[in-house]
């Protein structure tokens, strides 16, 4: 994928090959392979417990894999001297000593990496933590402030690669927009970003490439438009039901979606089908963001914990009990 990069082409900064991690009989990461390229934001998308965090922890050298390779810049993290200068990692913003101030947390990192104290001020400014806030203990930080601190911690060593696990968690909408801009700028300057989320809309707005993971396996990978192409075609007709059954009669998979349906076929094939069936088309287009969401849910359906009825029968919130 990345080995034959020519001049000007894009370079893989994270390479994961055949990665497997088992806990007893449970396979958390199952033969996962992917790359994250320099100059791009790679979104790692999947429901909770799909294996995103385990994969990132293996990249960070905190968990040992049972099989496969996970390298950053061609090296295992353990083989990189002073790795904070090459790879910025944020796996859990809450994993900081509650009794230390934000400034102290960053100072410890700067001292470990051998950076001057001025770098701490630069990073505080970059993530918009005020002097006052930096003097507060992390115990008194909101989750959003902890994420900002964690991002400052990750960027401290001016790394070429960023690995961020659920960095948008706890950020308010303005904070999410800020982070999006920060990471975009970082990627445009040539950095590689791997960021995870369980929320599709967070990832699709920022990621150049998306990896969808479910039950420990990569179930889809590609750019948003590539994924959408595989998401099928949205169709709406005057007589939608008749066209849907005509498509089904051709052996095409049909999924109801709003007032129309999504069919696993090219628009041209559906147009021809509509002509033959003498159906009047109202809409015919590649499935859009909602299609992406359907795709995401469908790709990861096996791993979703939520059944159609999220609340057990008998609960006041159970759908059947509402009347």
């Amino acid at each position, binding site marked *: 994928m990345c080995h034959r990069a020519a001049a000007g082409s894009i370079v893989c900064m994270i390479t994961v090959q055949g990665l497997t991690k088992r806990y007893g009989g449970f396979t958390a990461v199952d033969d996962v392979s992917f790359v994250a390229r320099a100059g791009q934001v790679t979104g790692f998308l999947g429901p909770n417990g799909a294996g995103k965090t385990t994969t990132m922890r293996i990249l960070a050298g905190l968990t040992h894999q049972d099989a496969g390779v996970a390298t950053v810049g061609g090296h295992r993290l353990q083989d990189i001297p002073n790795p904070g200068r090459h790879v910025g990692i944020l796996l*859990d913003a809450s994993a900081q000593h509650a009794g230390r101030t934000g400034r102290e947390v960053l100072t410890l990192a700067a*001292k470990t990496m051998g950076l001057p104290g001025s770098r701490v001020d630069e990073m505080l400014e970059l993530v918009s933590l005020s002097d006052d806030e930096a003097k507060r203990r992390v115990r008194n930080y909101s989750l959003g402030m902890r994420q900002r601190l964690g991002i400052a911690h990750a960027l401290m060593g001016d790394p070429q690669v960023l690995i961020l696990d659920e960095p948008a968690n706890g950020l308010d909408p303005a904070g999410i927009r800020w982070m999006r801009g920060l990471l975009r700028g970082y990627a445009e300057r040539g950095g590689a970003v791997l960021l995870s989320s369980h929320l599709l809309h967070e990832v699709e707005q920022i990621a150049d490439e998306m990896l969808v993971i479910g039950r420990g396996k990569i179930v889809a990978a590609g750019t948003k438009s590539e994924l959408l192409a595989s998401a099928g075609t949205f169709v709406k007709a005057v007589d939608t039901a008749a066209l849907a059954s005509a498509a089904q009669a051709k052996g095409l998979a049909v999924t109801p979606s709003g007032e129309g349906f999504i069919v696993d076929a090219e628009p041209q094939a559906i147009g021809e089908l509509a002509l033959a069936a003498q159906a009047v088309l109202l809409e015919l287009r590649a499935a859009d963001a909602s299609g992406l969401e359907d795709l995401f849910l469908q790709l990861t359906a096996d791993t979703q914990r939520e059944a159609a009825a999220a609340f057990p029968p008998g609960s006041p919130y159970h759908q059947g009990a509402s009347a």
Partner: protein
Amino acid sequence: MSATAPAPHLGTGTFDISGTAPIPLTRLVGVEVRKLVDTRSGRWLLIVQAALIAIGSLVLAVVIARNDGTAALFDFTSIAGGVTQLLLPVMAIMAVTTEWSQRTNMATFTLEPRRGRVVLAKALAAVLVGLAALVVAVGIGALMTGVSGLLGAETTWDPRPELLLGFALLQVMSLLIGFAFGTLLLNTPAAIVLYIAFYTIIPGIIAAAASLMSWFDDIRPWIDFNMAIMPLSDFGQPDSELGFGAIEWPEFTTSVALWFGLPLVLGVLRMLRAEIK
């Protein structure tokens, strides 16, 4: 670009790490020292320690002066030693276990994934802070010897360096045993309880077992750390013939291996393999 041209600088997808120097151990030790004193719990542990020593020594100074006794520097360092032998190991335990309970080990081990170096830096940092605390403790002892002199007591400044060295060795060994318990259990309360048991209950159990079973009495010198190090804790008495010369080094070595070496090896193996959550 022709096919035979060398790969472009970025084309290989690797970092050039040849220009990056590894983190020197001294820097890691400096960071670990800072971690020991930059939290309230860490600072207060040292402050409480100094306060207990000062109060205990002051009481002793007054009692000696009231009874027209003789105040010897070593009387005060024994009081200090009683406090530090309990609290310095607690500090050493927390140097390891706090990172686990607060989960800062994730940040620590991603910035230095060679975990063994971090453990070594922590042990050295605990010893350095421990030695600094001992200097303060001896300073308080000297001050209080002077105070009891001012209050009218006779004073003896026993200058034997061997005495202070023995004191320091006993204290540092205790601290390192606490550190080893910390790596073994990776849990603050459990490691502190184990250390307090080691300091208070286990010597009694060993003594009782030795008096009941003669075979145990035979092996006791080889496993009883308190017995092995006794010559260092008691040799301040003026008529004492104890000291370094009275230590049985082979027995000393095996008891240290049992109480320090074994838990440390098991603990470090666990830390190297552990999944850091």
